[in-house]
């Protein structure tokens, strides 16, 4: 008798669980691992806000084909160890449909294999080329590759007849990947790297190292590769030391807050970025104009802060995923195939043309050189 009671309870519980899971089938769970706090929060915070905004917008319209989106956002603080445990949690416990993020290259490279093993689509918002090279079946990324970005910098340098540079990089995955690309491409581009220095991502003062580099009169320009506030500190310290060489930054500089933080020291800095930062200055016929203007306007009215390229990377990731789900239905494998074969998707970073060998889908033309004038971003023209 007792046994049958237990059996009934188990059956009841099972049927209850079943009905719950059937009710849940209406929503598509999308995970996100973003550095909302910590040194990379300039990236992760706008990314998280962006996907929250987009999910809200989408759900208000009834979701994708009647399926609502449920976001599960985890704050990694930019810490690769946390990213690993969140990735496992999202894949194994939450059983998410796909993961957006992480914000930084170091974190992405750490979880690349985990997503591959868990057969879960990863749409990274980080830059390093290694994320998509070698290609992993389930791993995609939306920002421009650092190889393209370095190429754009070197082209500008060649045009300016600069051949001897110093490289500064932070000790993060992003900094190290960028430094690697610079060292790899420098010989082909005829650029000589005279000095390389790596600093801690939490560095608060770099005047000593700037003094050391400034003493080398052969250095014609500096390339700094980081995403932390250190990029603004480098600018201030160099200008305070009276060192007036051109300073090139990575695409990590694409947030107006860094310009505000560096004040007048940011004037004239040259860096590569997507066109989001100059959305309002683009010609009306530019293919990205409509997308960029809508996104920046929506973001800025909702959050009362200026949009950055980083939020744009999350925008692209979210929209690409939604489009693929729309085309292929809520089936992981089919959605993966749909992303891999997606062509002509107009995003904030550029026009995406994915292929089985290219999981980034952006061409060299997605990168443009910008500079700072009067506290604003403008297109750099020699």
């Amino acid at each position, binding site marked *: 008798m007792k046994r049958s009671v237990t059996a009934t309870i188990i059956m009841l519980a099972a049927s209850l669980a079943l009905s719950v899971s059937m009710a849940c089938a209406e929503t598509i769970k999308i995970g996100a691992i973003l550095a909302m706090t*910590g040194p990379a929060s300039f990236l992760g915070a706008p990314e998280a806000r962006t996907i929250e905004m987009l999910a809200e917008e989408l759900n208000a319209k009834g979701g994708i084909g009647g399926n609502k989106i449920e976001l599960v956002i985890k704050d990694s603080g930019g810490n690769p160890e946390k990213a690993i445990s969140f990735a496992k949690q999202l894949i194994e416990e939450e059983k998410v449909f796909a993961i957006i993020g992480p914000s930084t290259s170091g974190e992405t490279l750490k979880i690349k294999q985990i997503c591959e093993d868990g057969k879960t689509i990863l749409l990274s918002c980080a830059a390093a080329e290694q994320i998509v090279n070698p290609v992993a079946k389930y791993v995609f990324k939306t920002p421009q590759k650092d190889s393209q970005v370095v190429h754009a910098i070197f082209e500008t340098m060649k045009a300016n007849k600069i051949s001897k540079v110093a490289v500064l990089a932070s000790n993060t995955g992003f900094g190290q990947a960028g430094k690697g690309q610079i060292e790899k491409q420098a010989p082909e581009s005829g650029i000589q790297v005279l000095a390389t220095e790596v600093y801690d991502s*939490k560095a608060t003062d770099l005047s000593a190292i700037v003094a050391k580099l400034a003493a080398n009169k052969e250095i014609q320009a500096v390339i700094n590769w980081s995403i932390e506030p250190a990029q603004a500190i480098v600018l201030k310290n160099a*200008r305070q*030391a009276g060192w007036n060489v051109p300073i090139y930054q990575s695409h990590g500089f694409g947030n107006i807050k860094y310009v505000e933080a560096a004040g007048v020291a940011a004037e004239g800095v040259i860096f590569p970025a997507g066109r989001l930062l100059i959305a309002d200055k683009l010609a009306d016929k530019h293919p990205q104009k409509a997308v960029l203007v809508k996104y920046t306007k929506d973001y800025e009215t909702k959050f009362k802060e200026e949009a950055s390229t980083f939020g744009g990377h999350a925008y692209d990731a979210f929209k690409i995923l939604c489009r693929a789900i729309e085309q292929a239905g809520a089936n992981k494998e089919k959605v993966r195939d749909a992303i891999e074969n997606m062509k002509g998707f107009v995003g904030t970073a550029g026009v995406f043309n994915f292929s089985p060998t290219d999981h980034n889908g952006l061409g060299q033309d997605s990168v443009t050189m910008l500079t700072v004038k009067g506290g604003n971003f403008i297109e750099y023209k020699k």
Partner: protein
Amino acid sequence: MTLELFSQYLLAGITYGIIYAIVGIGFNIIYNTTGIINFAQGEFVMLGGMIAISMHQWLPLPLAIVAAVLLVMLIGALVEILFIRWLDRPSVLRMIIITIGISILVREAALHIWGEGVRSLPYFVGNEITTVRILGARVSPQVLWVIGVCTVMVLALSLFFKYTLQGKKMQACAANRVAATLCGISTKNMVTLSFMLSAGIGALAGCVMSPITYTQYDIGTGLAIKGFTVAILGGLGSSMAAVAAGLLLGLIESFSVSVVPLAFQDAISISLLLAILFLRPHGLFGNKDAADLKEF
């Protein structure tokens, strides 16, 4: 090394060093009256900068800084009254864990209030690219502000401990708490005062350094580690030793970039801390016999 480069390193080292020294002194003041290390010391520095930045929206800069320092002193007092005062003869370990808890609490609160972005006060004189020339080196005038304000603070503190009644009472607590109580000194009030004092100097340092280093909700931890290194290096309890140790550490850090890669800068200070803990646990300037008598 040219003279110009030498003086550039020297000034950078003094700037880091004096900031570390102020945090180290903050540790010492509280250590002297309570026998504990207050790991929320770095958070006082962060709060000073953050509150001053917020106040500066309505108040002129000097008033904003004064208001921030007073507010942080109040917070320091509140922390002591709420979390430390009512404990009946707590163990050292328990008090340390409480201060670690407070530091996490303050950091999270700051994250919610001010967000994750970096902020900074405007430069007191000039702007981001203004420089002055000293011994061939070019530095921001703000560096002189940091060095100047911190030096004045150190001098004022030593005068306070030497010549005022309150200062002497605090020193009495440091020397022997039981004897001080027997002399009619309220050790509990002295503990509150020590929290206010170290919160105040931390906050002021946080304000003057803000234009150079920026202020972010999580800068406290890094500063606390450096300040702790300095306090240990000099010998716990002695403020003047902390100044010497702070300058030493700052100079080692800045000159080290000329020989080893910059990436090792933090490794140097941490190895120094470890070496001191192993070889001279009572610090460079501390007295071994006196250290043996202490609980921690």
